[in-house]
């Protein structure tokens, strides 16, 4: 029974679908041409994974595999599957902006939240081309959360902070497909640490801030990130509520205070952009 598979769909995100997994996952149609040709990439991936598994000399306890029972492993698989399941990618409706402003309280106008959403996202969606939240993987935090045990075996997943967007960061976050593939690799090593080490959605809130945003677990936070842009807005609202300086600046419509409180002292023209967007949405 130890080798048994869970019933039902167990989609993994990139290249992990096995033909005998017994799932209901959607799979891309084979490419036209010689029948066997389409199988070669899968075999190649299997070989590569096998080689990676052989070369990875991670202590079993550190990897969390030695004493993990099959039911725990299945639960982990289910948790991982949820992360990669399709997300609701809907835009924020006017009613959802209203509800978020009410949740924030203090008479903070809807126009200000709309301004934040616009400036923080740069006018882009909180979801990438694959229909999953926009993320950026920050390996220096994964390294801290996993106590450096993957430094040698996975140097592109676990590395010290040298500067913002160093070579590993650029490699991991080249585009959203790469960022999610990186997350998948990190998830296989340590689920919670991987989710906590990414920034999520249109407000780029770090996963380690899940509790500050008002969620019990990082998986709950990720579920919110996948519940449309409205879910991402609510997480941001939760984060602001936990940041008294930023909240006070929002109440006073102190744009500089908002810029410093949320983004730090080198905020550039963030205050002016927020103010401009605020006025565009009817703020006074």
């Amino acid at each position: 029974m130890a080798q048994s598979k869970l019933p039902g769909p167990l989609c993994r995100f990139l290249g992990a679908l096995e033909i005998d997994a017994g799932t209901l996952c959607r799979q891309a149609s084979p490419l036209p041409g010689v029948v066997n040709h389409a199988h070669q990439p899968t075999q190649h991936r299997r070989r590569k994974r096998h080689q990676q598994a052989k070369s990875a000399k991670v202590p079993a306890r550190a990897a969390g595999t030695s004493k993990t029972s099959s039911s725990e492993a299945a639960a982990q698989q289910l948790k991982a599957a949820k992360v990669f399941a399709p997300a609701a990618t809907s835009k924020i409706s006017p009613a959802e902006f209203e509800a978020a402003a009410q949740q924030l309280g203090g008479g903070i106008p809807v126009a200000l939240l709309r301004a934040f959403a616009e400036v923080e996202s740069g006018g882009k969606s909180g979801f990438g081309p694959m229909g999953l939240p926009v993320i950026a993987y920050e390996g220096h935090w994964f390294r801290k959360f996993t106590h450096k045990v993957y430094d040698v075996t996975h140097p592109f997943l676990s590395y010290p902070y040298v500067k913002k967007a160093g070579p590993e960061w650029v490699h991991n976050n080249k585009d959203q497909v790469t960022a999610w593939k990186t997350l998948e690799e990190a998830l296989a090593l340590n689920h919670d640490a991987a989710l906590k080490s990414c920034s999520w959605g249109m407000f780029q809130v770090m996963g380690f801030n899940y509790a500050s945003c008002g969620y019990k677990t990082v998986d709950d936070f990720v579920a919110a990130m996948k519940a449309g842009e409205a879910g991402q807005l609510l997480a941001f609202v939760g984060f602001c509520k936990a940041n008294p300086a930023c909240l006070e600046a929002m109440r006073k419509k102190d744009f500089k205070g908002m810029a410093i409180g949320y983004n730090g002292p080198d905020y550039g023209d963030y205050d002016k952009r927020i103010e401009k967007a605020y006025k565009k949405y009817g703020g006074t």
Partner: protein
Amino acid sequence: MAAPRLALVGMARAACAWVLAVGLPATSAEPEKLPVAGMYEGLMLAVAPDGRVTGSFQQAQGEGVVKQCRFLLVASSAMQPMSVVTWSTQAFSGTLVAHANELALKVSRLREHPGCASVLPPDEGQGLVLDRQFEAQWIELRRVQAERAPMQADVDKSSGARGYLVRGDIVAVLAVRGQRMLVDYPGAKRTVRAWLDASDTEGFVPPSR
């Protein structure tokens, strides 16, 4: 079976006595008295011969809209663990503990520095632990206060300026000769080493709380 058991107890006692007599060998978890000057994952740290520690921390995160956590610190080695004050717009106090190759900065309100809640995770009891990337001979960090502070290749000003720093730049002092200071300025691409007038810079003084 009693005799071997007694022998084991005796050996254990002897081992304990040896440990008490000579002390435990140093491990990476054992704090050192003074931290080593150098760069620690965004924290530039200088240590003066009298034990005064000055530091400048900067980490950033995000694309497009960048979130930045930046603060200065001073610490005194008069007590162990070292007491530290960090400040940006407000000052917060805590402790700084040095280990073999890392530092643990424990300041309960560290994330209240502007931008730091977005960049740094909540403390899970260890404090902010930072690994040393390289050692340096920095004895003090200072901030440029002149609008333009010319840098020279030689202690003698007549050697001509090889660029200048601007107000707010942080420099690390390596040596002092009268009113002149040999400093390192870590730029975006490389570190510049040059001589500056001491009067163009100011020491770190935390704001009164």
